[in-house]
């Protein structure tokens, strides 16, 4: 077990690599956890060290360290969300790296109309991973296109592993051979995120005949190889009717499923747009399934979920607060959907380099994003109303209106 430590404005951020949990501690706490996790010292050895260093009684050192480790232990509990991710960090905690635009499928809901074939050179991808790690970024999501069209995917995964990054790999699971699975099983701290949009009939309608069967077979092999695996389901008008069946499918496999909302980027996407009230209805149902039935369901609408549960307000996503996207050209992106929607001019986005944390903190596109509405999805607002600060039909304001009507209906009944 290892940890990564970096200094934030008012604390030291400790990232527990295997558990993927973060906790903010003071300097003494960070040094103690470093000794425990990274230097293989026992708690007693650490107590002796601190007792000598600070010239305090050994009993006091033991008591303070014992209490601190208990406090830290509470933070590792997986049934919660990381509050620090919500704060404005000095550097991203996680980054998404677009390594290829190439894909073997032509899904109905894909944002990409061109389907060109471009790969980020391995040398550049390796360099980016190194710089991210040197600056305390802990999580990397490798995205495409289809990452298994990337010619050097295994080499890049090894780079990530050598840098002690936690890795998410988003794939359609149709190109993963047995040989690849054997290699993936050797990569530490990897989670495979498989895009599935329904059960067989619907998934094949969206992604092509026979695709579900291939993906299903691969998922079962990944599970058998003890590789962490999740699914992600993009809700649209076509698959909204099968989300419950899909959850049962995932439950049957013993893997979590995550839900996001379809965004229309193309003219021919109109028919896939899901009715917002239907989406809210599903969202409430998903939350009930997660809380009451303990189903492993993930939802992207953090602001709405926080509102529904009566928790402190939350942003819709972590873009620019603790997250960063790097596109195929090596440019830093606030939100990839905004980029895809044409919000940015090609020369407007800064180039990723060794000084990226300062760029991330200070560049005007990131500053402008932060000063816009973070409680809702700026990309959806742009796509549906033409303004990043405009109306997001699936956002918090729309939900509050829907929820008010819904509660009034229930009371009337």
């Amino acid at each position, binding site marked *: 077990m290892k940890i990564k430590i970096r200094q934030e404005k008012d604390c030291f951020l400790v990232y527990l690599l295997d558990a993927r949990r973060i906790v903010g501690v003071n300097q*003494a706490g960070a040094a*103690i956890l470093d000794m425990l996790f990274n230097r293989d010292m026992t708690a007693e050895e650490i107590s002796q060290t601190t007792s000598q260093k600070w010239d305090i009684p050994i009993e006091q050192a033991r008591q303070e360290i*014992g209490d601190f480790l208990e406090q*830290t232990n509470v933070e590792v509990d997986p049934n*919660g*969300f990381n509050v620090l991710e919500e704060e404005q960090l000095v550097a991203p905690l996680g980054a998404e790296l677009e390594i290829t635009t190439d894909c073997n499928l032509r899904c109905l809901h894909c944002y990409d109309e061109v389907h060109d074939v471009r790969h980020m050179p391995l040398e550049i991808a390796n360099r980016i991973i190194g710089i991210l790690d040197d600056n305390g970024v802990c999580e990397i999501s490798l995205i495409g296109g289809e990452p298994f069209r990337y010619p050097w995917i295994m080499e890049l995964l090894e780079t990530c592993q050598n840098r002690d990054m936690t890795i998410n790999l988003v794939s359609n699971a149709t190109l993963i051979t047995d040989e690849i699975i054997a290699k993936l099983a050797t990569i530490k701290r990897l989670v495979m995120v498989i895009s599935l949009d329904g059960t067989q009939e619907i998934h094949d309608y969206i992604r092509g005949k026979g695709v579900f069967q291939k993906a299903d077979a691969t998922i079962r092999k990944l599970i058998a190889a003890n590789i962490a*695996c999740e699914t992600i389901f993009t809700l649209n008008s076509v698959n909204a009717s099968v989300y419950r069946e899909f959850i049962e499918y995932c439950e049957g496999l013993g893997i979590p499923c995550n839900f996001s909302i379809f965004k229309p980027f193309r003219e021919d996407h109109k028919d896939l747009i899901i009715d917002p009230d239907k989406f809210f209805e599903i969202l409430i149902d998903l939350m009930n399934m997660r809380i009451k039935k303990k189903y492993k369901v993930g939802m*992207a609408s*953090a602001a709405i979920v926080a509102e529904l549960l009566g928790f402190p307000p939350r942003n819709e996503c972590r873009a620019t607060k603790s997250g960063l996207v790097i596109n195929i050209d090596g440019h830093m992106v606030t939100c990839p959907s905004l980029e895809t929607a044409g919000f940015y001019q090609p020369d407007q986005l800064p180039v990723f380099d060794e000084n990226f944390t300062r760029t991330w903190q200070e560049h005007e596109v990131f500053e402008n994003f932060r000063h816009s509405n973070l409680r809702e999805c700026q990309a959806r607002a742009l796509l549906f109303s033409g303004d990043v600060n405009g109306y997001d039909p699936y956002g918090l304001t729309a939900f509050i209106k829907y929820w008010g009507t819904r509660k009034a209906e229930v009371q009337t009944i």
Partner: protein
Amino acid sequence: MELPKEHEQPKVIKPGSTPEPIEAGCCLRSCGGKPGGMQSGKHLQNRCAETMAFLGQASSSLMS
């Protein structure tokens, strides 16, 4: 990572999680990104359990 020169009681000063069943998700463009339910997978649950056991043992070893 060095200990401070002067005595400082080690503390969690920014609790990293609250007992809420939600995660900061990212819906990316249309079909992926940082998943919202990461922690609910059995692998990460197991890793969390191992980490908690490790911390618990370290703490209790000082109390005995």
